[in-house]
């Protein structure tokens, strides 16, 4: 096993929720197959619209011989027929066929997964890429594979602009690699993706709590424009202010202890402590009042939900700067 595998095993299983990585794993496996047998026939089957018996039909040896690769996508949505066919095939595989199965997540298709693992299938992972750091690592890796250098600032700006979807991030990386030369820095990224910001309620709230009215309103407009509902934005504003009050009232102490007592994550405590600088109790009190009023307006009590959120944000920012000076 320590030597690089010379041939692809007859069973390959790709598990994990990240579609892009799963696709790449399938493509890499097929490439590997073609190195040995260039004329391998690839048959793609999907879970929805599967016709019973198709796996067995395609796997049956053809009159003209030749190797085949059957790719079954979306085992997590497989119906009973597909599962039964796969199980039957795994129990009696054909020598000239390679079977690739992708499974995103969930319990469905578990029996097929177990059977394939037991039959010593090659298992490839396609883990979810969620945090900003993972996304940065992903982008950095994309550039490295293409033998290009990108500055950390450039990667950060790129993730900020198109980080919502990994597929989008990957194609943005490819575009930069193909269209530019030399070191990829922040100016290059801004030239291609400037002005586009993937705004979420959290970023809006962070800017508001930091007293940055302009930034917060800008992000709010971005968020609304890309379809974020005002309701969760207000909810995030409320929870941020709540955390400030609770951490502020808890006083000194190790943040880990505080986090346990308050039921928050340690990084949330640290963040709240940093933000507390410009705040006092009265300012927080008035801000919470404003957010509560906005919540009611957003839920049908007012005429314009976005205006209600904007007003709450402006109140928060004003209170923050007022409290800071006083």
């Amino acid at each position: 096993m320590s030597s690089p595998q010379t041939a692809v095993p007859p069973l390959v299983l790709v598990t994990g929720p990240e579609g892009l990585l799963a696709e790449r794993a399938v493509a890499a496996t097929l490439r590997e197959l073609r190195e040995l047998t260039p004329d391998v026939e690839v048959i793609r089957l999907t879970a929805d619209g599967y016709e019973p018996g198709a796996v067995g039909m395609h796997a049956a040896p053809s009159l003209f011989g030749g190797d085949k690769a059957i790719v079954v996508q979306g085992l997590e949505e497989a119906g009973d027929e597909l599962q039964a066919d796969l199980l039957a095939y795994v129990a009696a595989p054909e020598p000239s066929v390679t079977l690739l199965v992708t499974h995103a997540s969930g319990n469905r298709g578990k029996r097929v997964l177990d059977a394939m693992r037991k039959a010593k299938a090659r298992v490839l992972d396609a883990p979810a890429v969620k945090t900003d750091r993972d996304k940065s690592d992903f982008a950095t890796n994309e550039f490295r594979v293409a033998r290009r250098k990108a500055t950390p600032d450039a990667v950060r700006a790129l993730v900020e602009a198109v980080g919502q979807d990994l597929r989008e991030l990957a194609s943005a990386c490819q575009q930069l690699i193909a269209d530019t030369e030399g070191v990829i820095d922040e100016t290059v990224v801004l030239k291609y993706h400037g002005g586009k910001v993937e705004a979420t309620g959290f970023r809006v709230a962070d800017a508001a709590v930091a007293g940055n009215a302009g930034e917060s309103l800008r992000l709010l407009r971005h968020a609304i424009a890309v379809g974020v509902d005002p309701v969760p934005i207000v909810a995030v504003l409320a929870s941020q202010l709540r955390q400030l009050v609770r951490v502020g009232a808890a006083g000194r102490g190790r943040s880990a202890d505080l986090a346990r007592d308050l039921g928050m994550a340690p990084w949330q405590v640290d963040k709240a402590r940093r933000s507390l600088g410009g705040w006092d109790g009265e300012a927080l009190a008035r801000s919470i009042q404003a957010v509560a009023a906005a919540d009611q307006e957003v839920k049908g009590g007012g005429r314009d939900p976005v205006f209600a959120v904007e007003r709450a944000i402006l109140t928060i920012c004003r209170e923050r700067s007022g409290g800071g000076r006083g």
Partner: protein
Amino acid sequence: MTVWRDVVGQSQTVATLQRAVSDPDSMTHAWLFTGPPGSGRSVAARAFAGALQCPQGGCGDCRECRTAMDGTHADVDVIATEGLSISVRQARDLVALAQLRPSVGRWRVIIIEDADRLTEHAANALLKVLEEPVPRTVWMLCAPSLQDVLITIRSRSRHLQLRTPPVKKVAELLVERDGVDPGMAMYAARASQSHVGLARRLARDEGARIRRRDVIAMASRITSVGTAVGAAADLVKIAEEESTAASTERDAREIAQLKEVLGVDPSARTQPPHVRSQIAALEKEQKTRAKRFVRDMIDRSLMDLLSIYRDALMLHTAAPVELINADGRAEVDRLARTMGPDDLLRAMDAIGLARERIEANVPPLLALEAMAIELRPPVRH
């Protein structure tokens, strides 16, 4: 004994209803009972239903009377929802039901206990049958106030306004009916502000009394923004714990019953799809029920909280009315000392606003935080 025993302090309404039972000319096909919570709207409606079915016009002892009042009479249907609203689907079922002749009794009676929870569609679905009644069908709708029902329903039914029963009458009922000790009955009637059901609960459940005391004590606990936010979190937590305690056992029992009805193996780890979908539907219903329960609990706590500020205000104005929290006199005095009349009024407004906001779907925690912040005593300069 008569069916009217439990209808406390509503002599005028009872007289009207009795006349309707004895005199066919005074009878009509749709009645709308309104009155503050706990004034006995549904009790009055059930008593009326009993009197209509009873051969002697409401003796309170015969089978007709008893079954009508506990809601098991074949021709008396009581509709109450534990969810957040009564859907148009339920309303259409009622329309069909209303067309049937009574099977054993003299009338077919349909009581809707929370007509205020009818959705607009559901209320509209009822308009036709309310307007052109089937001869022997009687509708009885109950709602807190006239504004809570659609104007078109209002105009199609005869309105009866119930008043808040006097504290003494409520206490008497508790002593007579439930055998509560007179002192406790007085306390419960006063603390519940004449809400009959609540008074009974307070008188019989030690936990309810402790909870009420905790809520009242909150008034003095709130001193800063930090304690205010903490108090709001506590209020929500108390309500949620109460809800879990009340529902866990019942929810599990309902699921087990459903599985039994469907004839599936209750111990199986995964159920077949059609069973799963039914279980999921039931779980969803249970979730709305729990949500409503939490909201009702919080609303009740807010009423308790409101009462102590009201008492403090009464001390300021020296009005000759009885205190609701006569047992917590020290607390009331303290509050009256630290807060002036305008502060107290502001606090009461804040509590009212919080109730309104929770009604409008603002998360209870946020609404209560905003309220608790307003309840802080003023800073003396």
